[in-house]
């Protein structure tokens, strides 16, 4: 019998009899002869659980993970410690196995989580409106582009050269049919340059905070020149305990990658993207939004709301096509934020700031290392090496230290998490020195 099924031979006979057909094949009568497969699928026979486990374990063992080396890899995803209570809660079948809460009466748990999540994202970003998650970071940037384009009816996107390249690429791919164009904003010494109000053909300006090279952008300054365009900031939510909120600096849309909030690396996913915006954009938001309400007995409850934005109601007029998003990962996010807590978010941010500056100073003191820029940083910084950075990464990795992400020819992006101690940083300095000697 196929794994995970229960139809015994007796069951099958009884069921076929009830249906009134002779065989299961009769049920597929509508499939024209010409398109029937007519042979078994060319996929190996099923294996016992222990063998599937062994196969997957052997594959996993072929990877060098953050468990196996001292890793300073970041560039969009970060090896933060995921507290155990997240596993414990996410493994509850009541969160793991249901689908979108279409029936609110039996989905209050999930709906309240969305509401709490939206509140947390709103607090972090300083923006009043958050949806309940989108896929992940770069596609959230693209979704912000779609919103800006449909909202402003304008066709130009200004993108900082220091926006994460994946975000730029995703925006470019996704907008292929929109009739929009992308223009780059130059970056000097780490900072996005904008010194006059943008033209009124601009739908949106895209900036990273911190940006791809780790620099803290002066969002308030950029905001002054946004004109009638929407200012879209891609933020790292974990830094928002120490960095000014995008909302207070006049940002219209703040999106980003939520992986840093209690989600595993998972070779890139699943994580979640967050999407927050100003009040004016509420009815343009993509994706699910939960809202508070009451039931017929006056009890507090939560529902999916503003659904007329969505694809299943408005179809071709929807604000987005998104349906399945990342509810479980967003749950991890809100648990993580509760675990960190109000003080913890700040403490962790401060720890990262201190360790990151320590690391930058320590590495910059090595012969053959220059700073890519000298702006303040929070958790990541870019260096310019005297040798090919890809080769340097290989050299160090072979010694058990993954020094970070090599970009261009000589750029190295070094990320710090609370799992990288001073000792780890000092070890990196040692190995990097050797590599550059």
């Amino acid at each position, binding site marked *: *019998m196929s*794994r995970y099924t229960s*139809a015994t031979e007796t069951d099958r006979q009884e*069921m076929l009899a009830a249906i009134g057909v002779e065989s299961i094949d009769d049920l597929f009568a509508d499939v024209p002869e010409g*398109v029937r497969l007519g042979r*078994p*699928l060319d996929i190996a026979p099923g294996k016992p659980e222990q063998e*599937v*486990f062994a*196969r*997957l374990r052997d594959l996993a063992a072929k990877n*060098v*993970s953050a468990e196996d080396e001292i890793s300073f890899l970041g560039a*969009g995803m970060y090896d933060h410690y995921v507290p155990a209570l997240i596993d414990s809660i996410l493994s*509850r079948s009541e*969160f*793991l*196995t*249901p*689908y979108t809460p*279409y*029936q609110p*009466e039996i*989905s*209050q*748990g999930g709906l309240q989580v969305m509401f709490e999540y939206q*509140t947390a994202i709103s607090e972090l970003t300083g923006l009043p409106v*958050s949806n309940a*998650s989108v896929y992940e970071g*770069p*596609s959230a940037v693209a979704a912000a582009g*779609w919103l800006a384009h449909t909202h402003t009816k304008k066709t130009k996107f200004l993108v900082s050269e220091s926006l994460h390249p994946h975000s730029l690429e995703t925006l470019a*791919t996704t907008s292929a*049919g929109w009739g929009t164009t992308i223009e780059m904003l130059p970056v000097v010494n780490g900072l996005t340059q904008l010194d006059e109000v943008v033209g009124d053909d601009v739908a949106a300006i895209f900036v990273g905070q911190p940006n791809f090279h780790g620099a803290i952008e002066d969002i308030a300054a950029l905001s002054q020149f946004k004109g009638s365009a929407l200012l879209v900031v891609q933020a790292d939510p974990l830094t928002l305990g120490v960095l*000014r909120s995008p909302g207070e600096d006049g940002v219209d849309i703040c999106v980003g990658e939520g992986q840093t909030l209690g989600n*595993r690396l*998972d*070779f890139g996913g*699943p994580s979640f993207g967050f999407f927050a915006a100003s009040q004016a954009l*509420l009815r343009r938001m993509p994706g699910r939004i939960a809202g*508070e*309400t009451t039931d*017929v007995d006056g009890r507090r409850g939560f529902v999916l*709301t503003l659904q007329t934005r969505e694809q299943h109601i408005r*179809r071709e007029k929807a604000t*987005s096509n998104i*349906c*399945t998003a990342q509810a*479980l990962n967003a*749950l991890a996010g*809100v648990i993580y*934020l509760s*675990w*960190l*807590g109000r003080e*913890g978010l700040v*403490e962790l941010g401060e720890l990262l700031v*201190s*360790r990151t500056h*320590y690391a930058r100073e320590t590495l910059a003191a090595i012969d053959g290392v220059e700073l890519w820029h000298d702006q303040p940083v929070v958790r990541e910084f870019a260096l310019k090496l005297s040798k090919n950075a890809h080769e340097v990464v290989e050299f160090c990795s072979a010694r058990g230290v993954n020094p970070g992400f090599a970009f261009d020819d000589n750029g190295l992006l070094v990320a710090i998490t609370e799992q990288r101690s001073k000792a780890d940083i000092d070890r990196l300095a040692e190995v990097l020195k050797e590599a550059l000697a």
Partner: protein
Amino acid sequence: DHAKTIYEKSKPGRRAFVAPELDVPKHELPAKFRRAEAPKLPEIAEPEIVRHYNRLSKRNFDLDSGFYPLGSCTMKHNPKLHERVAALPGHARLHPLTNPKRAQGALELMHSLQVALGEIAGLPHVSLQPSAGSHGELAGVLVTRAYHEDRGDFRTKILTPDTAHGTNPATVTMGGYEVVKVGTNADGGVDIEDLRAKADDQVACLMLTNPNTLGVFDANIEEIAKIVHGVGATLYYDGANLNAVMGKTRPGDMGFDIVHYNLHKTFTQPHGGGGPGAGPIAVSDRIEPYITKPQVVKLEDGTFDLDFDRPKSIGRLRGFQGNFGVFVRSYAYILSLGGDGLQEASELAVLNANYLLAKLRELGVTDLLPPAYDRLCMHEFVLSGAPMKRELGLKTLDLAKRLLDHNFHPPTVYFPLLVEEALLIEPTETETKETLDAFAEAMAEILREGAEDPEIARNAPYGTPVRRLDEAGAAKRPVIRQPL
């Protein structure tokens, strides 16, 4: 109060997190960048966080507790092995930018999955990148655009049947095309004449689900493919219903150029309350140059790599390589079932659906809830609540709410749109005959009860954590975050 939020349980000074020691000199950010007031996150210790979410979880219905015949969502059992293998540190702590040489296990897994998915769809080139079905659809529309434009062919319209999932038209719009609807014939299939009339050289693509959302396999599929290809358009397969046909027929063999899979449906990633999912696409040779990059490839020496050198690729649709954690589960599923098991899964999904329909007939449920198309179905089927509404004054919604009191998750309601008071029922292959019988009995019981006193169902549910909620009020005066 059971609906207290975690913010309402917060108290200044409480905490769960203990920061690692500051082992380097303290560094402060310049004041102009520093946040003045910390975000008002909860302040709460671990025991109460755990209790809070534990209690919330008990306010959710879930697949591991009961039958969840949500049509078009394929709520099949989520094998527990999958969580174990996805959590292995070699997967869970693998950074997506790890040098491919040192992520050979992950790449081999992805490549093996690509090969298996390609075989199932009958289309050899698989891009795993899209994050969900709708994202896969977008990928499909974008590669269609790239395919046409690469030949200097600039088309403006995409056809979607009126039975399509809402994501199809929404995707078409986001892809920059005009939506043109195609009608449905008396058998529940594509209205061939309407299709022929609308298929012209401005049509870039027809997006089709087969079996469609009526649970009907379109027997004219060869003719449809001929018409679509005849005008130079691509034929796109919405894989939401792939669970009906694995090993029986393949989209590629039916003539489709592009397919998306919902790994969370057919390949049983837990739905997570609304994600994560994954929506890989498979394409034919002529579409292959355009699919996303990077692409996982197997090199001649047997190792695996990420191929970024794809000059005609549409580019990337998201960061990194896709929802790898979902791939692990899907691959485990394919290894566990094997080719024969996948085929049998589809056979039993179709058997279960037809049996449930037969049982509903036997119990007289279909007198008031007739099938929209009175014939054999595939893995799901649609009932119309119109007679019930007429005779008993009960709407499909009332029936759905009353099912909650019977501890069943209701089917999909009011979809597909072209069936009045629709009820879309998909039992999946992992349910037992006893469960199907019990569900059918509950349906019959609700109708019996409704004939006596329709008020009971109209005011249902009763035994749920909350009862019917004021959705209109919620939308009118949206409270979408807690004021703190």
